[in-house]
């Protein structure tokens, strides 16, 4: 039990410490350089503003989170589907990649009128944009993971007469899980911001709306309140993905733990 508490502390302390240090340096920097608070508010100012806008924040968080999570899930689904298709056929791999990359190089704001025209102002276009932003890292990592599966395992399974989808399920996919989660971590980080950007195209509520309206009122402190909230939820999403990775691929941490144990002892 005590070991567990100790471990919790050991795992929890570093992020808390670095973040505190970062805030301290920021606060000191602002105070020492005397930079105007409408340019860069100090953390203390942001905290105060946080308290003031607490209710507004709460109201605006839920829609954004909803868009982010739904879009993220959709993005992962699409990514998995595409990754499987790409891995199954060399032809598709070569053929689809340019389109995928194309999908990432279109500035969302430049096609805003089309998005609104086609999908309106509701939840749908936002979820689609988040999916668009998040699916790509997952596809790239997963495809790389799928195709780097141990060829000998693949061969062994084939010798058992396995169909290609069985090779997939039993070798490629478990092997690709760590890569898949790498991609997911990147995607999770982009999810909430993706929703915020989507809201800039037209929304009546959400953190994106809160942010842009605050910015337009030259309220830098509230802009940073919004950013803090966005960062917080991105961290939560990221953390959930890390947990999911451990849960889904315990074997990948088996030997690593052993060797970490070793490292710490020395």
């Amino acid at each position, binding site marked *: 039990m005590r070991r567990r508490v100790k471990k919790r502390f050991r795992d929890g302390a570093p992020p808390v410490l670095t973040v505190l240090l970062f805030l301290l340096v920021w606060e000191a920097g602002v105070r020492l350089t005397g930079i105007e608070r409408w340019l860069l508010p100090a953390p203390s100012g942001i905290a105060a503003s946080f308290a003031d806008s607490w209710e507004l924040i709460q109201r605006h968080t839920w829609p954004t989170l909803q868009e982010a999570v739904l879009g993220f899930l959709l993005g992962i689904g699409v990514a998995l589907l595409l990754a499987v298709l790409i891995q199954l056929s060399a032809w598709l791999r070569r053929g689809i990649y340019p389109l995928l990359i194309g999908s990432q190089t279109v500035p969302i704001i430049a096609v805003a009128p089309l998005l609104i*025209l086609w999908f309106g102002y509701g939840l749908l276009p936002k979820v689609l944009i988040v999916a668009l932003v998040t699916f790509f890292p997952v596809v790239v990592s997963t495809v790389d993971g799928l195709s780097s599966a141990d060829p000998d395992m693949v061969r062994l399974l084939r010798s058992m007469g396995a169909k290609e989808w069985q090779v997939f399920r039993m070798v490629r996919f478990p092997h690709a899980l760590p890569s898949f989660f790498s991609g997911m971590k990147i995607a999770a980080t982009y999810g909430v911001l993706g929703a915020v950007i989507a809201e800039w195209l037209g929304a009546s509520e959400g953190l994106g*709306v809160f942010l842009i309206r605050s910015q337009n*009122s*030259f*309220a830098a402190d509230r802009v940073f309140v919004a950013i803090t909230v966005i960062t917080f939820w991105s961290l939560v999403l990221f953390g959930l993905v890390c947990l999911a990775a451990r849960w889904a691929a315990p074997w990948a941490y088996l030997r690593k733990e052993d060797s970490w144990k070793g490292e710490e002892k020395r």
Partner: protein
Amino acid sequence: GGGHDAGGGDSGKKKVKLMLDWVPNTNHTGLYVAKEKGYFAEEGLEVEIATPAETTANQLVGAGKADFGISSQEYVTQARAEGVPIVSIAAILQHNTSGFAAPKGKRIQRPKDFVGKTYGGWGTPIENAFIQTVLNMDGVKTRNVEDQVKIVNMGEADFFTATERNVDFAWIYYGWTGIEAKLRGVPIDFLELRELDPVLDFYTPTVITNEKKIKEDPETVKKFMKAVSRGYEYAIDHPKESADILVKAAPETDKKLARASQKWISKRYRADADRWGEQKEKVWTDFTEWMWKHRLIEKKMDPDKAFTNEFLPEQ
């Protein structure tokens, strides 16, 4: 944003979509008043106010995806030249309240002082033309303004930040940024466009709809404009109350700024005109001609078709 009117949601009302040009600000106050005070409802309309990104409204109104929008004369002109069938149906402000601004320390008191300085803009060709025109007025002849003034796109950065750094002057709307400067106690020099050259006294912002709407459903347009007009009339008479209505609809807006801005701008909605929203043909023809001269539009555009006063309520 948008408050809820008491009668909202009953099926008898006609649903209408209005798109702003940017986040809610004091240019839009009359619209929010009309909604909050139930003027729209009285006309049998249920208005949804949407806030899309920047110039998106022009295209979406043009495509009929929204019934009304907020734009401005230069956008309407350019959009029509590109074939977007939008029509300006009211001038929100009677005069152009925008102009070039610089912090006092930059020593920019007249267009001549622009020479050798850096201008921070929105990235539209029209700004080059503005600068060229005003330089011309002040005796600086040039074929390419960028030989005289360094022009950078400062995009989303606000005036105060931009001018802290390499940027010397920028194009601002006095009713918002200028008021903010006052509130902050940042002294600025402000060169109002219309005072530099009367041709630059164009309408910004304006209310737009599309040609098809006008043709097929003039009744709704009329009703809509009646309510909007009432909204702005109220805002003209009650700056403080109307500012609060705006802040209620968009609570993220800074209340102090909204009130100060409203106080300044309310007087200027109607200004010297007979009624709110009135647009003069001369302003449209002159400014269109100016835009053509500066090659801001590639095709000639008939200014008479670009606007109409026919939906403004009779006095």
